[in-house]
């Protein structure tokens, strides 16, 4: 009995904030619900309208995939790069580790997104730097849909801290004897990195890849703040979750938004499944070695 009492905070929280809302959202996704009048059952209409008759929906999907496909690999590469450097350093690692991790702690916050908007503003730091370097023409980062999206991608790359820490831990776990043996055999630094470090680190890379992909698909705050809730210019930063939010809270279409959320869940599941399928091709587990 006491055992149940001890786990009850989790169980109650899980029921109230996960299971019941998800059930409700699944039900609502088959209804037309405007928050004011009771939901009306419409079957698969929301799903049908979304997939066949909503240009903006497909636009937001495209933007989201662009964001994920460009952002996640860059972020992981950057995290790995810094982790390798920190792994080799001998002095001041603690300080640098903290400094590099800082952007991730404050990462999801509104303040950072507002700062980012100003950094890339027409009179922002980036244009100031470019001017200093001799470019006298200002770049209007938010005028073009692609460059506006890239400011979001760069923001996500900048927040590489958590993957970096995991990489760092992984690197520390690689026994130094492999490296030593290789260098005795005459392998140079690059060969050692690509032929020894990377394969041994691949389970960690895989873990980071899956986690970061999932969270990238769900990105909301920076897009909302930087585009002031609009997803502009020309829907260039209209990430999936931002469009979902607009449907729900600007247009009062809770049913449609719920349907979008479920399609997103299925999509993320699918992408994760594919990643797991490919893992046997490149992820190297020591236990498999026989």
């Amino acid at each position, binding site marked *: 009995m006491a055992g149940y009492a001890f786990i009850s905070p989790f169980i109650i929280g899980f029921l109230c904030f996960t299971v019941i809302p998800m059930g409700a959202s699944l039900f609502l996704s088959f209804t037309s619900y405007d928050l*004011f009048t009771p939901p009306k059952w419409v079957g698969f209409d929301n799903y049908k309208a979304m997939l066949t008759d909503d240009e903006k929906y497909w636009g937001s999907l495209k933007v989201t995939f662009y964001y994920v496909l460009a952002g996640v690999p860059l972020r992981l590469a950057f995290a790995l790069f810094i982790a390798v450097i920190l792994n080799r350093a001998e002095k001041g690692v603690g300080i640098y580790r903290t400094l590099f991790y800082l952007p991730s702690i404050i990462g999801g916050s509104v303040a950072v997104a507002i700062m980012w908007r100003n950094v890339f503003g*027409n009179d922002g730091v980036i244009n100031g730097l470019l001017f200093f370097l001799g470019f006298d023409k200002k770049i*209007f980062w*938010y005028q073009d849909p692609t460059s506006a999206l890239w400011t979001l991608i760069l923001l996500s790359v900048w927040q590489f801290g958590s993957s970096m820490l995991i990489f760092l831990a992984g690197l520390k776990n690689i026994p130094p004897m492999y490296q030593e043996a290789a260098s005795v055999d005459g392998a140079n630094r690059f060969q050692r990195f690509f032929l020894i470090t990377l394969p041994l680190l691949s389970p960690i890379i895989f873990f980071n890849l899956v986690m970061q992909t999932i969270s990238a698909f769900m990105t909301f705050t920076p897009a909302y703040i930087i585009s*002031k809730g609009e997803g502009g*210019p*020309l829907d260039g930063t209209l990430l999936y979750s931002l469009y979902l939010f607009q449907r729900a809270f*600007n*247009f009062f279409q809770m049913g449609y938004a719920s349907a979008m959320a479920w399609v997103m869940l299925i999509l993320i599941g699918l992408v994760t499944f594919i990643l797991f399928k490919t893992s046997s091709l490149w992820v190297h587990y020591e236990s498999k070695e026989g």
Partner: protein
Amino acid sequence: MLMRRFVFVSLCILLTLGLFGCSSNTEEAAGADGKKKVTLRVAWWGGQPRHDYTSKIIELYEKEHPHVKIEAEFANWDDYWKKLAPMSAAGQLPDVIQMDMAYLSQYGKKGQLEDLTPYVKDGTINTESIDEKTIKGGKIGDQLYGFPLGVNVLSVITNDDLLKEAGVEIDDGSWTWTDFENLALEVEEKTGQYGSNGMHPPDVFFPYYLRTKGERFYKEDGTGLAYSDDKLFVDYFKRQVKLVDEKASPTPDESAQVKGMEDDFIVKGRTAATWNYSNQFAAFAQLTDAPLSLKLPPEQAKEKALFLRPSMLFSIPKSSEQKKEAAAFIDFFINNEKANALIKGERGVPVSSKIAATVKSQLSEEEKKIFEYVERATEYAGEAEPPEPIGSAEVIKLLKDTSDQILFKKITPEEGAAKFRKEADAILKRNQQ
């Protein structure tokens, strides 16, 4: 062992106390004047100046009515509506909510708002010096879903220094759209500044353009778009594109960079004219160094295109448990001189003619301009627009997106016209069901 039990028991006591502490005190004590104590929740949107003076009005009200305690809930425009919808779903709407014409149908027709007619009839809201036509602005059918707080008229706000520098004058009784275009081009040529801002947002000024051509934006019953000739849409946006091309209007990107009134083009002296509702003039005049004035927009006379519009309304939700007290607060807001001395017409020219006269006499020359402008416009004003239909939030966003696509040259005005018509009609039809 004993110690442990002691700690356990005292922790339990603390916990229970804590729980009681959290539960709200539901009992209502009688106030000093014998009336039952009530707590009213009042919600509005706006900028910092509005929050400041409205809080002062609330203090004033609480002082005069000691049995009433008011909880203020305020936010900027965007966040306000995002907060209101879930509150409404939970039956937790504040007792007095500031309403906009764009949302009156959404909330009124879907049974969220109380008809205020009984409170007008029994005198809780005193309408002695308020024109019946003004009150009608808050009605859908014969249900008074919101009480208008002030009157607004569309206007062109001009920077007189820039106009003088360019050597142009506006005869706003008779100028045409072509005059407006030429003026903007000339200002750009002579001064290097913009002749006009981009006429944002399009959902305000495109319908006005239609009115000058004797057409309407929405059908009366809200089932679709009323104007039938897409050439009107094309002409309107062609002019916009031309002005942007000739650098007589800012690009949509530059407009998007404007974060608040403080860095608006007119405030920075970068444009000779800006399009806005008359009540915005006060804040612009305060922030701008150059002298500003209010002009009637082009071609308003022929079709009586101008109209008086409730700048905002106060509504009482059906779910409120103290509707009468809420109505009394609305009355105070509309009819109390001291309250309106604080508002100074920032919520539009007061609906009560008595109050409007009193307030006007207390204002500075700049602030008076709004009152004079609205008086002048009233002479020309035609029939008001009915409240916007359900689904208009989506149509407005669609028009804005389409306008952006045209100005960014992703589509031509012709393509935009066809696309907008098709999608807007679909949205409005869907919301009829």
